[in-house]
């Protein structure tokens, strides 16, 4: 095709503010950088054996554990994260800005560091470990430790999503509702939460995904035992040692879940 009709076919909207063309090249390279490894992983999948690889006892145990713990962690995130987001977005207590930065720290913290921190807080010899032990509660090497580690890393996602939604929504609907006679609890239940529901939903999906992918903190803090603490990512890591095909199959499963999450958050496939 000659350049002239191609130019004519271009959308008129792009005529006003065109990018320098060279931008396309690094952009394409960047896209490749992300897509190539994923494509390589998919190409590596042994499709014939996939059902067998995914249905092995170890795989099923890991998947079931991952789903169970991630769901529990997400529930915990909602229970704790919604009030946190409300406090951060709707109050002006002193020191709130510092608190916000600290609470969001797990977002950028290397997961292993998170695991170490949890260990020193809730581990048997940690800050609270002694008291917990005295109460007959031992978190170390239990499924509860996995949930705790997942909540630790996933909570900021929920708080950030919801706080952003709360700030975007603003307070004006809440103010109108209050003036109309709704008390604080009614405003929260009938106005605030319904208005930020999409933000809450994307926060829930993101924190579930983050919990599902949690690796470092779980490994450091919870250990690795089939059916108890060995979640899907830990299983992938271990299978890699002996059965790379099984590792790839499980990795594919995680990629699929991640893709579903991304689509769910963005509302529709980005096409």
């Amino acid at each position, binding site marked *: 095709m000659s350049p002239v009709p191609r130019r004519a076919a271009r959308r008129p909207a792009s005529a006003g503010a065109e990018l*320098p063309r*060279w931008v396309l*090249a*690094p952009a394409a*390279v960047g896209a*490749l*950088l992300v897509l*190539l490894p994923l494509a390589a992983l998919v190409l590596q999948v042994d499709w014939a054996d996939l059902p067998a690889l995914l249905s092995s006892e170890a795989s099923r145990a890991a998947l079931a554990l991952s789903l169970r713990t991630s769901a529990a962690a997400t529930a915990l995130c909602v229970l704790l994260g919604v009030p946190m987001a409300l406090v951060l977005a709707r109050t002006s207590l002193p020191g709130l800005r510092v608190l916000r930065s600290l609470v969001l720290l797990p977002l950028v913290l290397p997961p292993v560091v998170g695991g170490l921190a949890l*260990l020193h807080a809730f*581990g*048997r*010899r940690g800050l609270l470990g002694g008291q917990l032990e005295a109460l007959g509660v031992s978190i*170390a*090497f239990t499924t509860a430790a996995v949930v705790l580690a997942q909540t630790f890393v996933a909570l900021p996602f929920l708080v950030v999503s919801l706080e952003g939604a709360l700030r975007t929504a603003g307070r004006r609907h809440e103010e109108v509702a209050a003036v109309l006679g709704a008390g604080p609890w009614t405003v929260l239940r009938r106005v605030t939460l319904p208005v930020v529901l999409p933000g809450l939903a994307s926060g829930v999906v993101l924190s579930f995904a983050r919990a599902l992918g949690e690796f470092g903190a779980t*490994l*450091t803090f*919870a*250990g*690795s*035992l*089939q059916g*108890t*603490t*060995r979640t899907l990512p*830990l299983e992938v*890591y*271990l*299978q*890699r*040692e*002996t*059965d*790379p095909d099984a590792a790839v199959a499980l990795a594919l499963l995680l990629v699929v879940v991640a893709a579903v999450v991304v689509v769910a958050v963005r509302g529709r496939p980005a096409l």
Partner: protein
Amino acid sequence: MRTAAGVVAVAALLLAACGGGDAAPPDTAPAGATAPAPAADGLDGTLTVFAAASLTEVVGELATVMEQEHPRLTVRTSFAGSSDLAAQVEQGAPADVLATADERTMQRVVDAGLAADPVPFATNTLAVVTPPDDPGGVASFADLARSGLAVVVCAPQVPCGAATERLEQLTGTTLTPVSEAGSVTDVLGAVTSGQADAGVVYATDARRAGDAVRTVAVPAADGAVNTYPVAVLDDAAEPAAARAFVDLLTGPEGREVLAQAGFGAPDGS
């Protein structure tokens, strides 16, 4: 022209990263500085040694010895789990020498036609470690089977876990660990942090941990020995230097360094 050159540069960088990325050893670094002195024996260039993580100290020390003896030679080392190293070699990582923590992993590389005639150069046995204050009161390997004791071992999929399983069979002990870690480092970490009451690790790791752990000797462990093989890779860029390094590792000087670290001598020597 300038933008085109920039694009080419970026693309080239990325291609280089892509081409070598999955194969390049994760933490490859020169083990020592090179002194510009005339070579006495013609050994020069850069020698790359891939070694199991448990060999970190030993191979590091021997690399320094090698560079002192051959001033024009640079020795780069890369330490990781044996399986990781084998996988990297299979993917074409530019290594000259490979030393693994078990024969099974080395066999994978030999079967792939990438190395021939591996030489066993050391053995490692298992030891039980506990926190220094021994909260669980562990006196023997059999004690680990006691209920209520938090025991961490390696997963059967990795060499130290396979050895632990053999030791269980040998002693007729059935462990119910609270965690099966993917590496011996994770086991040691669980014990030193006091999370676990006891763990099963290599004797060399127990020795390296020093005062951070209390070591319980396991006499039966001699029956569950891991043998460490080393081989010059067929695609070695510096085959002469590679052979010299293997000779150093299997010779008297290597023997001494290995013994200091707690390794045993292989059956054949």
